[in-house]
């Protein structure tokens, strides 16, 4: 297990390096001169030179790249052009909100999806199975920038139960979590169903039933435990999609997380912060995948290390 973890970390390192390289070169993908884009073409030559120097753009690209990588490792991710604060500090302020949102969305998704998937699987082929799967397919197809406003209209405007936006109380977390978690719930439900159907067919389930165990015990204690393994892997892989989807959800609900920081910085052309946010989200994604992989192998001894 330990060996596997080390091996996995070693393979993740070049991926992280490649991701950082792509993010570094993004600033050079700006059509024309980045300094012009930030200050406008009428800016004074002195201001332009100062900004170019501050961003390191006056140096040869090799030096810029080396400096960028050294900064990444040492925790110096540059400074915001807008308010001159270190990028890492801005990210530290915001990531907790995004993390809380993603965890709650994940919780909402799992809490709805696994019972729904089991419900459909044990009734395979029935009317209720088809209805559940139809709802799941619709759930996958609903854009979160539509679901969010609709939930606001129903639960905040019409019923007045929940706050429209912001992050004042725990109640503020409910609508954004549902908005972000809905598509994931739909996906997990479909996966749980097909994985359960596969498990129910197996011999150990027949054995458990013939021993006279109750159906609840057969389904939940035996079949579901094994059926969840592939589901866990996919859920881990989906954390990335969740973090990216959070950008839209945060915009709709005015949620002060990394996604809002990213969008504010894009609007201000504050490129160092944009790079920092993208790096932070993709690093989180790679690390979560790594952890899921290791957990999966720890949970299922049949998987070869």
């Amino acid at each position, binding site marked *: 297990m330990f060996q596997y973890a080390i091996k996995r970390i070693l393979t993740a390192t*070049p*991926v*992280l390096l*490649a*991701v950082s390289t*792509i*993010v570094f070169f*993004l*600033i050079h*993908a*700006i*059509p024309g001169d980045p300094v012009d884009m930030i200050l406008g073409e009428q800016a004074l030559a002195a201001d332009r030179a100062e900004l170019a120097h501050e961003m390191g753009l006056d140096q040869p690209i090799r030096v810029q790249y080396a400096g960028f990588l050294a900064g990444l490792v040492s925790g110096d991710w540059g400074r915001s052009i807008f308010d001159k604060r270190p990028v890492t500090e801005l990210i530290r302020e915001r990531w907790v909100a995004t993390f809380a949102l993603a965890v709650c969305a994940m919780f909402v998704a799992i809490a709805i999806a696994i019972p729904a998937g089991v419900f459909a699987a044990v009734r395979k082929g029935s009317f209720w199975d*088809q209805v559940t799967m*139809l709802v799941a*397919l*619709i759930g*996958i*197809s*609903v*854009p979160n*920038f*539509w679901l*969010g*406003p*609709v939930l*606001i*209209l129903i639960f905040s*405007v019409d019923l007045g139960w929940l706050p429209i936006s912001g992050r004042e109380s725990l109640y503020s977390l409910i609508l954004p979590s549902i908005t972000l978690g809905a598509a994931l719930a739909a996906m997990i439900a479909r996966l749980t169903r*097909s994985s359960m*159907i596969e498990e129910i067919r197996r011999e150990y389930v027949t054995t458990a039933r013939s021993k006279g165990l109750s159906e609840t015990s057969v389904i939940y204690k035996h079949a579901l435990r094994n059926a969840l393994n592939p589901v866990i892997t996919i859920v881990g892989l989906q954390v*990335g*999609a969740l*973090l*990216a*989807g959070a*950008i*839209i959800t945060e*915009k*709709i609900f005015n949620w002060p997380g990394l996604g809002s920081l*990213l*969008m504010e910085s*894009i*609007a201000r052309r504050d*490129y160092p912060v*944009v790079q920092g946010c*993208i790096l932070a*989200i*993709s690093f989180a*994604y*790679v690390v979560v995948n790594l952890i899921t992989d290791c957990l999966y192998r720890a949970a299922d001894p049949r998987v070869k290390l």
Partner: protein
Amino acid sequence: MRTLTAKMGLAIVAILVIVAIFAPWIAPFDPGQYNLDLAFAGPSWQHLLGNDADGRDILSRVIMGTRVSLGIGVSVIAVTMIAGSLMGLIAGWYGGLADRAFSFVCDVFLAFPGFLFAIAVAAFVGPSVVNVIVILCLRGWVSFARLTRGQALSLKEREFVQAGRAIGVRTPRVLLRHLLPNMAGPIIVNASFGLAGVIMIESSLSFLGLGVPVDQPSWGGMMDQGTQFLLVAPHLSIIPGIAVMLVVLGFNFLGDGLRDMLSPRGR
């Protein structure tokens, strides 16, 4: 039921394609025409879906938006399907170092969630239809490549391929005439789901102001304007969102149905 969803998917997609092709003739009004007297007007007989914040006819804008979304979706899938499938096919067939390098490149692209990658690039290159297509192509080929690579790895050991090589059929012909047709099913299914995904990402980008420029009608852009006036005029954001949902649902239905029809273990 399964074939029913496939048929429904096909019907939705067919209608949308017709709407997209004939959009300028179907749209009752000029989608760009301002009429501030009608700003935020609700649905009426003249303007069936009402008017937006600038008094533009929402129905006409939704119809023209179909053209933009499907146009982007089809272009991206056409390019990524051909390029990705060929790259995967070649990597899987030859194996060795080239294949390992290729898999690493795939892993790097997969290390970014697709939507984050699109936002990252769009934030730097700026909004335009061409940019959206290029950005989505940059990431979209990976799923096709991984699919055909895996298939090539397993198919190349099969007897019909070995037989073909034994009688001296040249490699390009083996790849294109013998391997590729055997993968057509999964590729088509992937294309259908891919279209749903591409359209979802495109409208999300436009919603964030990073996709289709605001002067062109797009569903995401309309949603963006709509959410700013959510409490004043909810129809501004609800209607284009339904359009996105319908298209994505159509392609997902179609993909689901096709997969069940094409896979022998279909459930």
